[in-house]
């Protein structure tokens, strides 16, 4: 068996016995990030995620920045295959570069970046070679707040609060009941931390190291990683073998 690199970057295996080139398709991801949460607040948009890169069930990498800046008006957070996220960042950095080179007073806002990314994701999906990610895009341009999501099959939509992966099941219900249009930054962070804590308790791929990023008309800030306080003093944890005394 030998590996052969195709022009478009895909790799196929070539059996020396029969010379056939199989068409490549993505089968499964390798190093993955878990949930990303995003929500709009009074002055802009906040994104949050942990900094874990799992290798299957192993919590292999613990310093993975899954939220990045894209141009002056947009933040992107990714879950799923980390290497595909790095590829997406290459595309988006190139897009922003060419946009800056126009130097004409116009600039691509978060809506435009989101749609561009959606074109890429859907196109790859149609070729059966998706970028294995679920992404959250947030941004502010000329006072207009934007929050959208796009995933590996090209599904995309906007909302006041969004999440990927487990975040949809654990964080969104909290946000649906407690989110308001006029949250201050501090209130928004508290709400996000509530969601992150639930994910930390219940999502096995998460670790206690989180990053929060905010974007407003003034600019972007990606805060350094920090840990949350967890509580394990539940009565059921006090005497774990209570219900299993004895030897049989």
């Amino acid at each position, binding site marked *: 068996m030998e590996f052969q690199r195709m022009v478009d970057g895909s790799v196929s295996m070539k059996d020396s016995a029969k010379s056939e080139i199989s068409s490549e398709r993505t089968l499964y991801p390798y190093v993955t990030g878990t949930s990303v949460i995003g929500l709009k607040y009074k002055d802009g948009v906040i994104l949050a995620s942990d900094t874990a890169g799992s290798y299957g069930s192993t919590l292999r990498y613990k310093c993975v920045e899954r939220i990045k800046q894209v141009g002056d008006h947009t933040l992107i957070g990714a879950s799923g295959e980390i290497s595909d996220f790095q590829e997406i960042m290459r595309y988006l950095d190139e897009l922003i570069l060419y946009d800056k080179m126009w130097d004409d007073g*116009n600039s691509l806002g978060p809506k435009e970046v*989101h749609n*561009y990314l959606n074109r890429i994701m859907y196109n790859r999906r149609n070729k059966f070679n998706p970028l294995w990610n679920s992404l959250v895009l947030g941004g502010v341009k000329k006072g207009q707040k934007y929050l959208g999501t796009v995933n590996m099959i090209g599904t995309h939509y906007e909302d006041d609060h969004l999440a990927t992966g487990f975040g949809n099941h654990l964080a969104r219900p909290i946000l649906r009941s407690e989110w308001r249009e006029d949250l201050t930054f501090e209130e928004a962070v508290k709400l996000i931390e509530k969601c992150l804590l639930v994910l930390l308790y219940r999502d096995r791929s998460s670790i206690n190291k989180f990053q929060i990023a905010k974007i407003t008309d003034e600019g972007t800030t990606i805060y350094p990683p920090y840990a949350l306080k967890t509580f394990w003093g539940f009565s059921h944890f006090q005497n774990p073998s209570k219900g299993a005394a004895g030897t049989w």
Partner: protein
Amino acid sequence: MFRNQYDTDVTTWSPAGRLFQVEYAMEAVKQGSAAVGLRSKTHAVLAAVNKAASDLASHQRKLFRADQHVGVAIAGLTADGRVLSRFLRNECINHSFVYESPLPVARLVVQLADKAQVCTQRSWKRPYGVGLLVAGLDETGAHLYYNCPSGNYFEYQAFAIGSRSQAAKTFLERRFEAYDGYSREELIKDALFAIKETLQGEKLTSQLCTVAIVGEGEAFHIIDQQTIQDYIDAMELSTGGPEEEAAAEAPPSAEAQGGGEGASSEPAPMDI
């Protein structure tokens, strides 16, 4: 311009550093019938003279919509203008498809200018023989550009191209400084005045001209004949005739605004 030995090829420079074929292409623009454009902070207006070849014929289209937010007026070889309009429409729709957002007018005109420049640097091509007034609205406000066969483009507050456009330009030069604050009605009236200047005595009717407007809350569209005729009637009522506003009176348009609303109920003083 005189014929000379450096004007056969677009890829031949003259000793004075000129490309004669490009200059001849710009002559073609001057031969076409007039088109004018003006803009305020929030609106841009295009107007063009429609001269039919004969009474039997319909007139040539000179105003084209490229997208909801941008349109062009052409002067010169209308066939070239049609082809370039198709290019503009394509660029606009491609951008909308990828970015779900209207193409900024400044970027559209650069793409158009780059396309025109190619024809000035290939021996097997000729320059486009059409000048385009591009009017559009985007995030940065209303814009008016002029694209030249040479591949140059310029932004204008107001401009006129085509035959006898100098008369319109003289009129616009007197008034353009106030345009940023003009309302859409005032812009349309000034566009019609400018067109009237190029007619050099011929009577202005809505049959003879086409006017289009784009602005905040208003997609690019051609204004219907009846509305234009109403504007023209209002102008004529207050100025008393086409020749008289050529005298140094700036006030005519101020009066035209006052007379505008009463015009439709009274019979206009026109010859049949």
